[in-house]
């Protein structure tokens, strides 16, 4: 295990930002810390890096207990959301900083800086000041700067958060390729589930200071531990007491299958190649769970399929979960459900 965190608790005044968090991250992988804003992702990352101290709990990096170690002794590379570039230094000087602190020979530093700027495609900008770079370039520079000291782990706090959607996507692919090349244990924070699912080997879902689930993208998507994880990774709807994805529902015009829920189409909305159909299921239906459970179910179909069925407002339909659909019981504790709605 490259990073072992156990029993971390962190309070800000009377606010619990991390609540007894334990997690182990294996060597050489790219792990995403995923969760809603304010969930405690940055706090966890900063404690791992030594930039904050926990109230209790331990952190060990590469088998060494790092709990009491100051940031500068942890050999951790940290990339900040807003780059934290050294404004008064050139790009090359920024990248060289960690090596100069370590008093490496000049020639070695020059060589390594050149190599790293090559790696992040910034060679031709080495003599510029950070203010003369674009956001994406600055972030690549910050990455090179963190990699320069050959850190045992690389931590990135929403590295692409401040960039526009297109650059974000480019850099995300680039990070994945870079990781495949460099193989340093990497943890990055994001609140974008698509980013996590696409890039990471492992995902740790954090909400309200607690770890909700740890697993590969497939595991998380197919076997969510609870309705929070399920809801956070994609759109969900409820049907007959279970939470499931809107495209995992089969629509029939006759009551064929056992356990099918009868309902009336109230709205049909075309969005691109999809059709979103809202079905009211509650009324007089014996399978409806309870009065307060939402009597509305959202179903997503392809355009062609919707046209074949001839769906329109008022159409009577029978709904069943598709076979193999991921479902979670919606009868979670009240506190949990509140967490879902307030958290996202």
């Amino acid at each position: 295990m490259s990073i072992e965190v156990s029993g971390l608790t962190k309070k800000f005044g009377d606010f619990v930002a991390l609540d007894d968090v334990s997690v182990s991250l294996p060597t050489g992988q790219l792990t995403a810390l995923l969760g809603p804003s304010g969930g405690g992702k940055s706090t966890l990352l900063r404690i791992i890096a030594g930039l904050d101290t926990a109230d209790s709990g331990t952190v060990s990096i590469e088998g060494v207990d790092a709990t009491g170690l100051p940031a500068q002794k942890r050999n951790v590379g940290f990339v900040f959301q807003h780059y934290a570039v050294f404004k008064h230094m050139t790009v090359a000087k920024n990248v060289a900083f960690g090596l100069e602190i370590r008093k490496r020979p000049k020639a070695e530093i020059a060589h390594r800086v050149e190599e790293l700027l090559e790696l992040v495609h910034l060679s031709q900008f080495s003599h510029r000041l950070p203010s003369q770079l674009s956001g994406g370039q600055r972030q690549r520079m910050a990455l090179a700067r963190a990699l320069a000291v050959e850190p045992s782990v690389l931590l990135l706090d929403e590295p692409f958060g401040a960039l526009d959607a297109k650059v974000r996507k480019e850099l995300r692919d680039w990070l994945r390729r870079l990781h495949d090349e460099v193989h340093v244990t990497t943890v990055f924070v994001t609140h974008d589930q698509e980013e996590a699912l696409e890039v990471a080997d492992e995902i740790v879902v954090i909400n309200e200071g607690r770890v909700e689930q740890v697993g590969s993208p497939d595991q998380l998507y197919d076997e969510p531990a609870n309705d929070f994880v399920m809801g956070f990774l994609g759109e969900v709807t409820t049907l007959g007491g279970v939470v499931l994805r809107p495209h995992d529902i089969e629509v029939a015009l006759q009551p064929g299958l056992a356990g099918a829920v009868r309902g009336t189409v109230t709205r049909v909305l075309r969005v691109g190649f999809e059709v979103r159909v809202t079905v009211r299921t509650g009324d007089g239906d014996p399978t409806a769970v309870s009065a307060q459970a939402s009597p509305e179910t959202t179903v997503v179909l392809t355009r062609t399929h919707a046209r074949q069925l001839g769906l329109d407002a008022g159409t009577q339909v029978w709904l069943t979960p598709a076979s193999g659909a991921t479902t979670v019981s919606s009868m979670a504790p009240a506190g949990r459900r509140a967490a879902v709605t307030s958290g996202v």
Partner: protein
Amino acid sequence: MVSPPVKWGLRVLAVGYVFFLVAWPLALLVRQTFGNGLGNLVDALGDEQVTGALQLTAMIAFWAVVINLVFGVTISILLVRYEFPGKRVLSALIDLPLSVSPVVVGLALVLAYNGRNGLVGPELEARGVQVIFDSPGMIMATCFVALPLVIREVVPVLVEVGDDQEQAARSLGANAPQTFWRITLPSIKWGVVYGVVLSLARSVGEFGAVKIVSGNITGRTQTATLVVEQKYQNFQQETAYATSFLLILVSIACLLVVAFLRPKHDS
């Protein structure tokens, strides 16, 4: 937004007020200095009392600025980057010298440090340290009155630049002194420069507190501002004008440094 007559009214009021209160009197004084060509200046610079006082002023201002620089930067960093009990009280007390009369400052230092019956003065004197009527007291008086100036310039800059560059430096292995010299200081450089320049102007010009603490001993503890007073009262007004002119040059130079550096580096 504002109608032209109102705008003109305000403009005339602002410019007129400053002109009659500051600009015109200042210009008149400069003219009086050069009433008979360079004669006044040459005479003043040939007067040992004046040159000695200028040297003493330079020495005192230098040490006061150095001490306030170190103290000011330290306190600013502590106030902005750390939490500790009593911080708020300290932050308010720092501004106290802004509103204490120089005469009270002088009196306070005398009461604490005079060798005859001061609070701790006699003990210091017994160990051979003379504070009052000597340079240490004059440097302290000057430090006191200029105390908040560096802090008032540096604190907003420290807040503005934030601490993420410092954190980045720490994560890259830099220890506290390395972080300070390589990251913090370069990024607050201009705030520090303004603070120093303003302190310098204030230190060179200090009068009341120094007058009391120094004892105003001609040729030994008399600073440039004290010479101006004495010469004027002794009807050597030309020398007083010339010495004032030199002091004005210093303060205007300080102002111009601030005025021309600031906009360039604010953007």
